[in-house]
């Protein structure tokens, strides 16, 4: 920091009292608010939505003065307070308003707090309203619940960052937009949230913008998401064109009534679903728009946990599930969703095998698990997709925060080849990490086991022709998941320490403010599977036959066998015979190369962007079309004018009598015309 007279250095004498002041002030505010809200229960969802926005506003307007009072911890406490209060109020409103028994249409919140006519252009009318039904309730709980934990964790993780205030203001803004996305009662309002979280994702990936790779990753995420957003906009327009409404409940009602008169609208519905799915692909990192997510790991690790694992990237799954009545009318769209999901799951799992950066393994794992969720939606088991979203939010946030704790302990080291043997040094992180790994691998009776089992059962129950293939592939992915996650765990925490001694000497366990969220998430990763999410959210889908999984006993046995096989193989390769990975690598060099190149998507896009667009623009459009045609035409017009003027100007002699002669000639000509020609 430069010495700036307008920004005095934080006062060093005495303890920083701002966090305490903020906390006390917030509590007082809360007591008043609760007293008021008791009489206005309908206002609570709006408060849930607007609290993080309030946090953002305060932090961005008064952030500098908060920082000047101390170290900025007050700002962090404020950000945590807003999100945690949102969570508490969300729980309260869901319990009090009995959302879960409100039926398929849920509760719509309009007057008098919102519900103004937002856009009105002819028949296109959009009310700004919120929709709280079973599906959005679950999402709100995930966003605010996991969000709160990650906010708390960030207090420790970002403790030494000078830009803490900016970080927490972005985090609050993200929470607001994410809540708007899940609570928005119509597609345009959802789109506002959708774009808002994209913006916050960009801002937070590029949070350390002095680092070129971080700035580039932010831009990449933003641009790739724009491709998807174009699909979302077109899908919204086509939905309005077909159904005459963009309201989510009305859309579902219209779609259900259309289902009766079969055929008729199949074409437009398929087109709408596919266009919306393009949007989902962008946001949820599905092939071919998955390339931004691994690079997004340049952001601070809590951001990776919150935005790029637990909440924002699941927005696509949420959107598909939200429009389940529509998607279930188009077999083609469902097939595309299922196949793209499965392919993405395979891609993520295989690329994760060869990654050496701890966060990138987790990133590809996220890509893979998102593919799993789309597979569930694609086979018609939308509730199961949301179930996996729910459990994944716990264990993936846990794994990311755990990896953050490891990185924190090693002073910024992310390369697994320079880790090892850390379990004794950071036991709490290790313990929670084991729980997370077991949960994602599908060890029986943990969260991931139940949701993954439900997806496999749903796939098996599907009447789709390719369902058996998808089932086998999904099972293989489950095995790979267990394998690469065990590899991550073993390379990081077991074996000898492989980093440099300097870093090794300073390994330290993270402060309690980081460990408590880890512990809470670990509990969630254990018990999350017992929440009956598919049953809770199923009314929102209005489907007669929700892929009812017939619980054959062999399926969970098979799934856990796959998981255990993966783990056993990883233990054998990375603990027992540690020379084996190298030999396999040497033996399968071409395949490994393909995986290391991430199947060449980046190369392909680089080729398209750098070769086709940049070179094409330069050589064809600029040097060809622009210079030779457009510029040439303009220059020719100019040259012609100059030439003609060069001849014409000789008329201007400067001699008065010459002008007089011209006037006379003109007058004579005019008079002759008037006299004789008329």
């Amino acid at each position, binding site marked *: 920091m430069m010495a700036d007279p307008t920004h005095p250095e934080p006062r060093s004498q005495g303890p920083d009292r701002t966090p305490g002041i903020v906390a006390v002030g917030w509590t007082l505010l809360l007591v008043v608010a609760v007293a008021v809200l008791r009489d206005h229960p309908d206002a609570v969802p709006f408060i849930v939505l607007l609290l993080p926005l309030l946090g953002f506003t305060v932090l961005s307007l008064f952030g500098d003065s908060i920082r000047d009072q101390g170290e900025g911890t007050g700002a962090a406490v404020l950000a945590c307070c807003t999100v945690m209060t949102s969570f508490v109020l969300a729980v309260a409103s869901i319990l009090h308003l009995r959302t879960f028994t409100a039926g398929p249409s849920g509760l719509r919140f309009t007057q008098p707090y919102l519900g103004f006519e937002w856009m009105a252009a002819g028949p296109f009318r959009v009310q700004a309203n919120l929709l709280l039904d079973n599906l959005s309730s679950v999402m709100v709980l995930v966003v605010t619940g996991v969000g709160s934990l990650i906010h708390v964790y960030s207090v420790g993780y970002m403790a030494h960052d000078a830009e803490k205030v900016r970080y927490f203001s972005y985090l609050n803004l993200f929470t607001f937009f994410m809540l708007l996305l899940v609570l928005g009662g119509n597609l345009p309002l959802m789109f506002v949230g959708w774009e808002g979280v994209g913006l916050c994702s960009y801002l937070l990936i590029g949070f350390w913008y002095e680092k070129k790779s971080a700035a580039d990753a932010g831009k990449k995420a933003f641009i790739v998401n724009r491709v998807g957003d174009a699909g979302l906009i077109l899908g919204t327009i086509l939905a309005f064109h077909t159904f005459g409404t963009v309201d989510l409940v009305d859309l579902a009602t219209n779609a259900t009534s259309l289902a009766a008169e079969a055929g008729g609208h199949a074409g437009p519905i398929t087109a709408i679903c596919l266009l919306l799915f393009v949007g989902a692909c962008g946001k949820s990192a599905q092939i071919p728009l998955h390339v931004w997510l691994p690079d997004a790991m340049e952001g601070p690790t809590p951001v990776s946990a919150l935005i790029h694992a637990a909440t924002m990237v699941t927005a696509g799954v949420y959107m598909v599930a939200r429009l389940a009545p529509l998607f279930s009318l188009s077999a083609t769209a469902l097939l595309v969703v299922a196949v793209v999901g499965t392919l993405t799951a395979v891609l993520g799992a295989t690329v994760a095998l060869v990654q050496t950066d701890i966060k990138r393994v987790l990133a590809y794992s996220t890509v893979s698990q998102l593919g799993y969720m789309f597979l569930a939606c694609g086979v018609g088991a939308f509730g199961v997709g949301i179930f996996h979203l729910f459990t994944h939010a716990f264990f993936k946030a846990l794994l990311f925060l755990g990896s953050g704790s490891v990185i924190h302990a090693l002073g910024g080291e992310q390369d697994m080849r320079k880790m090892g043997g850390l379990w004794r040094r950071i036991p709490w992180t290790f313990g929670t990490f084991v729980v997370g790994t077991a949960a994602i691998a599908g060890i029986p009776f943990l969260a991931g086991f139940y949701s993954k089992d439900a997806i496999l059962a749903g796939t098996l129950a599907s009447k789709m022709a390719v369902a058996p293939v998808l089932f086998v592939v999904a099972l293989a992915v489950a095995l790979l998941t267990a394998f690469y996650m065990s590899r991550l765990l073993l390379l990081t925490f077991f074996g000898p320490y492989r980093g440099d001694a300097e870093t090794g000497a300073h390994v330290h366990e993270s402060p309690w403010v980081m460990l408590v969220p880890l512990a809470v998430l670990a509990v969630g990763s254990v018990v999350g599977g017992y929440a009956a999410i598919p049953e809770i959210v199923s009314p929102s889908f209005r489907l007669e036959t929700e892929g009812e999984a017939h619980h054959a006993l062999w399926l969970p046995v098979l799934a856990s066998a796959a998981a255990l096989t993966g783990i056993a193989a990883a233990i054998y390769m990375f603990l027992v015979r540690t020379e084996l990975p190298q030999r396999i690598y040497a033996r399968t060099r071409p395949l490994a190369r393909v995986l290391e190149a991430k199947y060449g998507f980046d190369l392909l896009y680089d080729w398209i962007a750098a070769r086709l667009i940049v070179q094409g623009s330069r050589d064809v459009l600029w040097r060809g079309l622009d210079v030779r045609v457009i510029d040439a035409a303009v220059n020719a017009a100019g040259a012609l004018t100059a030439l003609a003027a060069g001849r014409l*100007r000789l008329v*201007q*002699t*400067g*001699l*008065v*009598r010459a002008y*007089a*002669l011209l006037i006379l000639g003109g007058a004579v000509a005019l008079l002759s015309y008037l006299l004789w020609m008329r």
Partner: protein
Amino acid sequence: MSATLIQHALLLSLALFAIGVVGVFLRRNVITVFMCVELMLNAVNLAFVAFSRSWGTLDGQVLVFFVLTVAAAEAAVGLAIIIAVHRNKDTLDVDAFDLMKW
């Protein structure tokens, strides 16, 4: 007024105008050219007065007053310009004044 009289007046006007035109084109002295312009103006004045008398209206005569006023102003400005140019160029030859060109 009889038709012949207006014809005579118009013929005289035409003759005066023609003399003025010829003078503008043939004479080189700028003062002479200037006087020829005045002659053309007065030829037009004569035509105005003749028509005015012929039709029994006063419009033509009013116009003559305007022309006279403008001619007086023009004479003042024109002679001032001629003096200024003469001071710079030391000549009154119209063909020497050709600076205002491309």
